[in-house]
């Protein structure tokens, strides 16, 4: 048993990085082709970036994903009641004036800004025109009037510039929910029957303090947000999970260990490093390895200026110079004790 277990252990000198790179890279070439005929079922994959663009996003360690979202799971006492969850959603769901009204009409002679709220959009929320008006009044510090669905904000000035600026400001006002939390909707987990919240942004730090939110289960696809809120370990796990989810969505069978190795390589320094010039490849120890990748002259000149010594331990630089690489069969070397050598007596 013990022997069998050991047979699965990786051998010293096994180039795991290259194997991982090839294992992820080879099916990645098929991903480009498959992307075009991707019919798509009504799941998160429709709203979120998937496939190769998402893989590039993760590997390049983009500061924010192009389609951020987060899952907010709730504590036991609320999670099974739709009403209670909807109540929380109402508190989170970010609605701006621009979501309700298409445009504003400014009256420079009277110094007013009018916004006609779309009744159809208004109906989908629990807001009323009066409520929106009072919120605008409070936030802008102006008097407001409502006439049906038309809100008129009376500005204190007749200055053209200020009214124009005020109009832009008005449109960007958050009249409901948490600013920066994004749109929020209630979803039901079909397996457990519990309700959870899906938001269209990754600012989980704003959602965490809300009562009823299960802090141990909150999740977002924004690796950097997780890094900020929960730390590197969580970011590493999130990165690996996102990679795994991505591969599964594309029906690509890659062993988890390759993805974990990639996640580890990107996070082991304590931060999140991308794979490329400004990250992993750009921080290689060897001058030649860096010069062989990108910006050749820059690396050579800097190496000269600082008197760098290339220890010639990596793969690239040894191939470059024509030496045997220190991996695989090149891991081992033979050492002979000179004293022992002297003990050998030649045959007579």
């Amino acid at each position, binding site marked *: 048993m013990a022997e069998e277990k050991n047979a699965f252990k990786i051998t010293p000198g096994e180039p795991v990085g290259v194997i991982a790179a090839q294992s992820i890279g080879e099916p990645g070439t098929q991903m480009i082709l498959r992307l075009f005929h991707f019919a798509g079922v009504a799941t998160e994959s429709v709203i979120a970036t998937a496939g190769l663009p998402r893989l590039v996003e993760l590997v390049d360690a983009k500061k924010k994903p192009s389609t951020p979202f987060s899952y907010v799971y709730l504590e036991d006492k609320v999670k099974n009641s739709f009403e209670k969850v909807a109540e929380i959603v109402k508190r989170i769901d970010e609605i701006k004036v621009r979501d309700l009204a298409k445009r504003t009409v400014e009256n420079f002679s009277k110094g007013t800004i009018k916004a006609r709220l779309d009744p159809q959009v208004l109906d989908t929320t629990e807001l009323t025109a009066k409520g929106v008006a009072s919120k605008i009044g409070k936030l802008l510090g102006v008097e407001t009037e409502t006439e049906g669905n038309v809100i008129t904000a009376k500005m204190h000035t007749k200055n053209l510039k200020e009214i124009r600026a005020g109009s832009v400001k008005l449109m960007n006002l958050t009249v409901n929910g948490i600013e920066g939390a994004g749109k929020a909707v209630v979803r039901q987990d079909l397996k457990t029957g519990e309700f959870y919240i899906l938001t269209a942004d990754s600012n989980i730090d704003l959602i965490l303090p809300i009562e009823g939110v299960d802090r141990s289960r909150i999740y977002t696809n924004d690796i950097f947000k997780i890094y900020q809120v929960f730390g590197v370990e969580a970011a590493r796990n999130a990165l690996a999970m996102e990679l795994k989810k991505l591969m599964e969505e594309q029906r690509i069978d890659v062993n988890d260990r390759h993805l974990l190795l990639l996640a580890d390589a990107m996070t082991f320094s304590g931060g999140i490093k991308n794979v490329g010039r400004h990250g992993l490849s750009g921080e290689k120890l060897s001058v030649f390895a860096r010069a062989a990748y990108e910006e050749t002259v820059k690396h050579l000149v800097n190496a000269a200026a600082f008197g760098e010594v290339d220890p010639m331990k990596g*793969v690239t630089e040894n*191939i470059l110079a*024509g030496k045997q690489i*220190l991996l695989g069969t090149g891991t081992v070397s033979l050492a002979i004790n000179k004293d022992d050598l002297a003990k050998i007596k030649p045959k007579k």
Partner: protein
Amino acid sequence: MAQINKKCYVYLNGRIIGYVADGETFVKEIRNGRRTGIVSGEVNIVYLPRLNAVHVNTDAGRVRKPYVVVENGVSKLTSDMVEKLNNKEVDFNYLLRRGVIEYLDVEEEENSAVAMSEKDITQATTHLEFDLTSIFGFTVNTVPFPEYNSAPRIGMGASFSKQSEGLYQTNFNRRFDSRGYILYYPQVPIVNTSVYRTSGIASHPSGQNFIVALSSYYGYNMQDAVVLNKGAVDRGLGRSMFYKIYSDEERRYPGGQRDVFKIPAATAEGYLGEHAYAKLSEDGIIEPEMSADEGDVLIGKMAPPRFLEESIGAGGLEEKRRDDSTYLKPGESGIIDEVVLTESPSATKIVKVRVRSLRVPENGDKFASRHGQKGVVALVVPQEDMPFSENGIVPDLILNPHSIPSRLTFGHLLEELAGKAGALSGKMADGTAFTGKSDERISEYGKLLKEHGFGEFGTEQMYDGITGEPFHANIFVGVAYYNRLYHMVSNKLQVRARGPVQILTHQPTEGKSRQGGLRFGEMERDVLVGYGASLLLKERLLEQSDMAPVLVCNKCGNIGYHDYIKRVDVCPICGGSDLQEVKMSYAFKLLIDEIKSIHIFPRIRLKS
């Protein structure tokens, strides 16, 4: 429909030139003008209701296609006009002038309702197709039964037939095309189409009718490989002649120098050795009907030296000249077919030598049917080992049945069936697109096959040629027209064990013409790294490439050299003589040299 523009703008070749009140009537007016001859027939006009715009196109390069004009549900091509046409009283241009036929471009087609046949015409119809085959181009129309194939395969079949060997010109033996491929015994396909027959391409056939069996053959026809019958090949199946032209010119150079055709003197620079010129006659040109092998000079030529100084050099008595002969490249051989001496417009002598070589089908040669079914010969089997039928018929080619269903080339099967029926009854079979229905055709051919004592569906009991045992299943055998494509191994084969290297990097050259190797690239390198095969990697990238012994100074880490006169190693920087020989990549040595050239001094520290 909501109109975007209230005014109907008129665009002439993409530029706005004005607007009209009502685009639709305007377009109608112009069209009537075109049909009556007031407006040129090359004008195409379209009204786009969604944009409320009129596009008029008169520029060159539009694809246009003729249609019969239909007005008020009646075709303008009346029956007595057809009669006149048949009696040759009128011609196509007459109908064109009369507005019976008009050409539409892609844009104007958007405004038209084209009926496929006369009985499909309704009140809304504006045009009528002449014939359903006219929706295809010429090449596709030479393919039988295209409507039973998938569209990509039709296109592939069309492009393969352009690569086929045949009788491309009947005066091929007088021509000096840079390359020519002539098929021995070309045949007209048994299954052909109306376009094939009427276009006259039948006098330039480009293939042969093969007896094709749909079967496997001991695994030798997997994955688009085909098996050929050696007996058939020996009898001339797929045999072809390859002609290649080598030419050279006696150029004149500034300074009164010029090239001379002659057997180069042994003193010439770049002299190839006496044996290379052995086949040249006195004038320095090879004689017709001589056989030539690789390395043999066809045209001997002496050229003046590349740089003027060299010729002025030593006393100027004997001018130093350079050998610039034309010779057969490695792997080429043949018989000199014809030699032509002529003159260029600038009155310099030109020699053209045509070399012919016989190309018997061999392993690696490419064949294709007209349905995009290509295959490479994997085995040429002696006739006695081929499967045979009860009548003793042995197929010329064995095609793997797996090639058919996934590619949806059912036209291939129909062609085989029709070809077999045609061959047995001694009649050509018709495979014109959109004529007849498949089940009718199958029963028609089946009847013919039955009459001649063959299986109704083209299947036959066959026997293994090696064991003599009958096959469990009946094998589908038919006659299909196959093209031999000009991609032949003998023109592509290349090997290298040792050979030329590049001057700059000392690495092997690339490309067939330079006897190059195949690049062991970065991804291939990664594979060896992934296996941990460090010594194999070193062998590929160093020992088999640009390994160079370099002397490195133990004291200062600079690259030194060996002074053969004083018999000591020298370091040119520190002057020391304690140097160590290291095997490194020449490219790396070059890199170090180049780094030095940008004022960076790299030192190599050796560890023992």
